[in-house]
């Protein structure tokens, strides 16, 4: 439909090349505003509904007449955070996501650098294979090994499995970042007497801070959101938030208010991070995507 209103504008253009006919342009503008409002509503309304429900008592949730008019309560949050100990799960999630991201950066950034500089495409493919393999096929052997080592439920195992998500992501993003960095800077530093590793450390790394931030933020988000690995490999003490929420529904009847509070608790931190780091996330998600 966009295209149709726009075509009217073009027809007008042809008759009077210098000036667009205002009416047609206005029609397209109105259409565009309306369409964008619809898109925003579609994307935000469900999240808003979740937030509303988390502030209602279960009685109010069942009362369809009180969809928007109700007296808000923070009882659900108090319940979830205190009685169900969600603070522990929040800290677990932070810890696992933070450590697995940090370790993946340490391993992944030099690797991406070497793969980009020496065009090691086949080596890169090995790392990127991890994106393609279904996680379940790795979980069974991991579970076997780690349960024999009596390590299931320990943070180390959880972090290791989340690194498996983070590392390929970081290598992928950083490779396309290094590809776009001019080689001449390092070469001139080497002419000035720096060793190649010195040039990487003193020239390339400082220039890559924004790329590393991009990769790090995205890997943190993916680790925070990861469900399947933690479902199998976490224990009562190392449970992460997504697993904790999932456990919430195993009760006979769903405590909807509590469930929505729990769901809000897991999404709010990651959304706040996303809001402050918008441009990094977008550049990371689209890294390498537009190269023909």
């Amino acid at each position, binding site marked *: 439909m966009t295209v149709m209103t726009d075509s009217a504008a073009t027809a007008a253009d042809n008759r009077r090349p210098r000036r667009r006919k205002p009416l047609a342009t206005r029609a397209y503008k109105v259409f565009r505003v309306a369409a964008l409002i619809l898109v925003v509503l579609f994307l935000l309304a469900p999240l808003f509904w979740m937030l509303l429900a988390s502030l209602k008592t279960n009685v109010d949730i069942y009362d369809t007449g009180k969809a928007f008019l109700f007296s808000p309560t923070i009882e659900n949050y108090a319940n979830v955070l205190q009685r169900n100990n969600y603070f522990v799960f929040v800290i677990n999630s932070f810890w696992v996501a933070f450590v697995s991201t940090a370790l993946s950066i340490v391993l*992944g950034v030099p690797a991406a650098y070497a793969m980009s500089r020496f065009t090691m495409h086949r080596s890169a493919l090995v790392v990127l294979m*991890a994106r393609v393999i279904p996680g379940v096929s790795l979980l069974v052997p991991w579970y076997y090994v780690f349960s024999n080592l009596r390590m299931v439920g320990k943070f180390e195992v959880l972090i290791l499995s989340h690194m498996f998500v983070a590392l390929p992501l970081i290598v992928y993003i950083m490779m396309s970042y290094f590809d776009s960095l001019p080689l001449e800077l390092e070469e001139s530093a080497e002419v000035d007497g720096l060793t190649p*590793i010195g040039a990487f450390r003193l020239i390339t790394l400082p220039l890559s801070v924004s790329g590393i931030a991009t990769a790090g933020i995205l890997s943190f988000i993916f680790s925070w959101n990861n469900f399947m690995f933690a479902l199998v490999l976490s224990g009562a003490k190392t449970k992460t938030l997504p697993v904790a929420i999932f456990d919430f529904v195993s009760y006979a009847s769903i405590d909807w208010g509590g469930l929505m509070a729990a769901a809000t608790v897991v999404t709010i931190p990651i959304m706040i991070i996303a809001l402050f780091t918008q441009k990094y996330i977008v550049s990371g998600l689209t890294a390498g995507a537009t190269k023909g």
Partner: protein
Amino acid sequence: MSVLNPPRSARTRRPGGPAGAGGSFSAWANRHRKWLFAAPAMIFVGVLIVFPLAWTVYLSLTDSQGSVRAATDFIGLQNYITVLSDTERFWPAVGRTLAFTGVALAFEVVLGMGVALLLWRPFRGEKWVRVAILLPLVATPVAVGMMWRLIFDPNIGFVNQLLGMVGIPPQPWLSGQDTALGTTIFMDVWQWTPMVVLILLAGLTSLSDEPDEAARVDGANAFQRFFFITLPLMMPTVIVAILLRGIDALKTFDILYATKGKGGGSFHEVETLNVYAYGLSFDYNQYGLSSAVLILFFMIIIGSMWLLTMRRKAVSK
């Protein structure tokens, strides 16, 4: 700018000889930096992939079940025969996986292209739309699943309330045997269309304006310009988007397991290959059988990726 002025330490430090000279460790490290840098990551991923994959292949040839520690017998291709002749769980799961991926991708690419075109040229309030696009993308899939469970609840859900206002009777949505898969596809579209929008928008912004302008001067209308100029130029980006999103759509697990639980619901109505394999492994401990399913699943993924990459090479020529 920092690009033009390297850090002071870089300019003032002058190591003894030219790069790579001498027999010290640092000289050795510099000469072999290619593998020194790449090897740790590759070994890490290799050990965590190659060994488990080999194990999965081995398990798929055994009757492993019950406990991962239990003794197993080698039974050859029996698991594959069992799986491939299973028309009750396996083949329907294959069908659902392909249907889920195909339908979700179709909606995501078409809607994504539409929204990307809306966002293409600058406008007021752009910031807000970008925020709205980012939030579903970063939301935790399990929480998203729970959120939709409430919204699609047959009795108290917002969707049925809304339909009630226009006189449409309540629908079972997630709990219905025929509607569950479609409802989960809807959730996937909500969460991941933004991803397609971002990729396509990046592609649109990097397009040169000239072909479009030339066509405009030649009198092509917006329809013609989109279908004959913009879309063909965007094809490589569209295929990248399909590739990236397709891999993840095939492997969708979180939303399905969070909303329907074990076995993809009591009638397996949303049981895709990933959910089926997970259930066989960790809900029913049928490791041998699930490994066979996983190997077949993996082959489907590699096959569809290969087809798409071929297609991409063809369009970028």
